[in-house]
């Protein structure tokens, strides 16, 4: 029960960075979303020891672990796009599957080649 309380409190505290991110977005007219500004600010606050890791660690861990939950409403919203589902739905899903396979494959191969080269240079 105590752990749940800590998580709730820390998730609330993380909202402070969301609001700061919103404020920063207001000042800087860059096409970067408030949450990314927030991410950057939280990183800076941790790095400059303005806040302690323990203040956010549990809450952040929970948010990241339950990330899929927050995507579910948007996934349900897909039914609003009958056009996609009825006309080209299957084609689009196949397109995305194939493209994602190529992306993951190329990224993994590139990373592994660079790592292998690094390793051989060291020996």
């Amino acid at each position: 029960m105590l752990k749940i309380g800590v998580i709730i409190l820390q998730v609330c505290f993380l909202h402070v960075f969301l609001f700061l991110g919103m404020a920063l977005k207001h000042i800087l007219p860059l096409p970067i979303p408030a949450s990314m500004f927030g991410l950057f600010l939280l990183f800076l606050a941790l790095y400059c020891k303005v806040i302690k890791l323990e203040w956010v660690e549990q809450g952040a861990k929970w948010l990241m672990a339950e990330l899929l939950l927050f995507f579910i409403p948007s996934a349900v919203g897909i039914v609003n796009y009958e056009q996609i589902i009825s006309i080209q739905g299957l084609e689009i899903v196949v397109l995305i599957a194939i493209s994602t396979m190529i992306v993951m494959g190329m990224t993994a191969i590139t990373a592994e080649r660079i790592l292998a080269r690094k390793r051989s240079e060291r020996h």
Partner: protein
Amino acid sequence: MMIVFTILTYFLYLFSKKVYGKIPFPIFQPLLLAPILLIMLITIMHVSANQYLEDAKWLSHMLGPATIAFAVPIYKHFSTIKKYMVTILISITTGTLVAIFSTYLLSKLIHLNSDFLISILPRSITTPIAIEVSKEIGGLPTLTTVFVIITGVMGGVVGPAVLKWLSIKTPIAKGLALGMGAHGVGTNKAMEYGKQEEVFSSIAMIFAAFITLGWGTLFILFI
């Protein structure tokens, strides 16, 4: 009504997680099973999708703080990031270009109309940034969200298979590929592999988002 659908979503999510834990088939992953059950349920209850979305909107709102939360693993593993900076930058830059161009070419192949074509381009990055890029290049943000979700679902399905076929061994490469290919959902998948995979997946997700944002800006400036 508000609480009802939020609680219902939460319980169906927990249920799906349990099912997937017992029977780890791709079709049972929570981001596929839970929405299917919810769509069936609201259809039976004669509740419109918009009404459901209105009630469950604060769950989507949590994506904001959840994105911010990724600062924690980055901070904790900052020295590792610095150590592998070149590997990260080269592989993620490659990944973003492959994502954009393969999506573009395949979309042309199936004659996707232009609204859809532009909206689908930023599909492989995390929702909040994908929406920004979509707006920048003249796409429809809601449509982009749909493509981002489909990417997440498909990434969870094909990701482990791709890594296995190509016999990718290093945790760094596995993590980078999952985060690059399927944003937060890929990172969630990476957690099943291990700590290092998870860290590099979060890193990939953030770098992919920023680099794609950069491509978007270049696109506007030169095209």
